[in-house]
């Protein structure tokens, strides 16, 4: 383990910006920290709890052009030697132009990426996610404490967990203790000035689990419980919970004509966030909607996280970050829901 001062850390991050895009927490408002691509270390919020939004958008952008189709009219030589117009079709795949460094990702958000990998890196691999994942180094920053709505310890994680990180930072007296965990981590820290850190990191006693996830049998029995209707009474059917969630990953895809000029046509295929809370999410051709009721959609949120996703892909689709609790305008509290479902057994 090595020791870096705050100044060394900043110099290193500043140096990385020349070749990579550096994504770091930025304070937009006194109470609002989000991850953004930064051009200078002055823009980085080093002192923050947990960002309001997860950094998932750098792996699954809210809007991503995944394919461009261009139709260009060119003049080519015909059989008789005369120039003739011809239409050429060009397909362009969108690649990242630079490697990404995600600075100060919290352990819960790294767990969320591990959970997403179970689905998106499994055959058939989601190529767009995979290449962003592959070209991004994760510089973890251990949490100093759990926030009021955090419940990662209830799901078997800890706020200083290094799992999934390439480099891990722990805040210590006078700077950071730094651990390089992968080859990618080694490559990205090549220019970092540091000194050996000989002390042991203090053992932390994290708060014990506050809740437990009900076992599968309970979920299976609770599906038709009137509880879901009661819970959905106050739900507004907005998409806040899904959009702030680090593991919600659903999207919509549509093709758009983006420019029309004589002799030139361009179509872009956009992939954009969508969420199962919204009325239109499951609507299919012909207008049928298999989940027309708000209660069905809200129930799906919790079954997806704690029953379908683990059954199909392994990990839970919840990491205990508590963002949905922070942001729900009508106090739909995921920990209360878990308690209520368990009480139904």
């Amino acid at each position, binding site marked *: 383990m090595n020791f870096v001062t705050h100044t060394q850390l900043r110099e290193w991050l500043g140096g990385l910006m020349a070749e990579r895009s550096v994504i770091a927490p930025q304070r937009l408002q006194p109470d609002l920290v989000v991850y953004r691509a930064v051009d200078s270390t002055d823009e980085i919020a080093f002192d923050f709890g947990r960002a309001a*939004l997860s950094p998932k958008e750098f792996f699954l952008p*809210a809007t991503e052009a995944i394919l461009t189709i261009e139709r260009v009219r060119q003049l080519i030589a015909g059989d008789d030697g005369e120039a003739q117009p011809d239409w050429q079709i060009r397909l362009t795949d969108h690649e990242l132009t630079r490697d990404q460094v995600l600075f100060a990702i919290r352990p819960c958000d790294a767990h969320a990426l591990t959970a997403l990998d179970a689905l998106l890196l499994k055959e058939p691999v989601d190529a767009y996610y995979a290449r962003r994942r592959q070209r991004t180094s994760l510089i973890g920053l251990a949490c100093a404490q759990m926030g009021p709505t955090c419940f990662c310890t209830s799901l078997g994680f800890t706020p200083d967990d290094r799992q999934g990180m390439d480099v891990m930072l722990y805040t210590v007296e006078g700077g950071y203790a730094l651990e390089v965990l992968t080859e990618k981590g080694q490559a990205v820290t090549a220019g970092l000035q540091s000194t050996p850190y000989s002390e042991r990191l203090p053992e932390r006693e994290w708060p014990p689990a506050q809740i437990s996830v009900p076992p599968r049998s309970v979920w299976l029995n609770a599906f038709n419980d009137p509880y879901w209707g*009661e819970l959905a009474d106050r739900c507004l059917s907005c998409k806040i919970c899904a959009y702030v969630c680090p593991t919600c990953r659903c999207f919509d895809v549509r093709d758009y004509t983006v420019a029309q000029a004589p002799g030139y046509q361009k179509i872009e295929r956009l992939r954009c966030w*969508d969420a199962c809370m919204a009325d239109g999410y499951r609507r299919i051709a012909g207008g049928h909607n298999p989940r027309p009721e708000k209660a069905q959609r809200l129930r799906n949120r919790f079954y997806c996280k704690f029953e379908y996703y683990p059954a199909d892909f392994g990990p839970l689709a919840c990491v205990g970050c508590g963002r949905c609790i922070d942001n729900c305008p009508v106090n739909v509290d995921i920990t209360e829901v878990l308690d209520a479902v368990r009480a139904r057994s």
Partner: protein
Amino acid sequence: MIEQLRVKAREILENKTVDLVIGYEMGTRGAVRPAFIRSPADVDRLVWNEGCTHNLVTYLRTKRVPAKRGAPPLRIGVVLKACDARALNILLHENQLPRTELYLMGVVCQGMQEPTRPQANSTSGLSLSGRMQLRCQACSDRVPVVYDVLFGDSSQQPTQAVTGQRQSELEMELQRLESMSTAERYAFWEAEFERCLRCYACRQACPACYCAECTAEQLDPEWVGIGITTPEKRFFHIMRAFHLAGRCVGCDECARVCPVGVRLDLLNAWMRREVQRTFGYQAGLDATAPAPLTTFRPDENLKL
């Protein structure tokens, strides 16, 4: 006061005046949340305090729909603050709700506080920020404009609300916007819209946003693409502001629910002021007065 409200709620549920009472209850982590009471035995869940900020009128249209197809619509008792009552008048005016099927439990409002961040799970009791909401600072209405029964002492003075002596913070913010150059103001709004997640919480929380199909999500024709980038978000917010002009009552639920703090309260306050200046009209005061933007008067000369 809350005891009287609970007694009345129990009474109207027991004598079947209503099928459902919508009010407020304590949630988790010190939060207040909307409560849906169907049984007289549950009325003790109802609370009234300075965290009861939600505009419950939002729920009325959908909650009237009976669970069983063909059954009569539900009759609903609802707790109303002054701002909520103005929102109700908008829906009554637009023939979205039958007045006779509603039982309106008006409450004298002393202003609502800014919500706090949710507290730790162990928290019991109410958690309030201690700061009066901007909209409440600018509001001097204590008593709802429409109600069937009123709870609270209407002679009570507002706790913090501005009573005309000094300018409210909201007005000062509007003036700050007005004093900007067009380019500065454009930059301000671009930064606001850029943050937006297009989660539609503002629209979902808004009592006046009730279209069966929102223009922002219509597929045929598709006015706005599915992209979550500034042009789509700008279009959505400006369109919504125009659809609310002359209808927005300033409950500011849109701004409260926004996870990234987009200043929709300012956008709508700006439009409200334009409507006030142009037509001398304030939305929601009267369910029968003609609405300025849906009324054509041949003799009208706005001197715009």
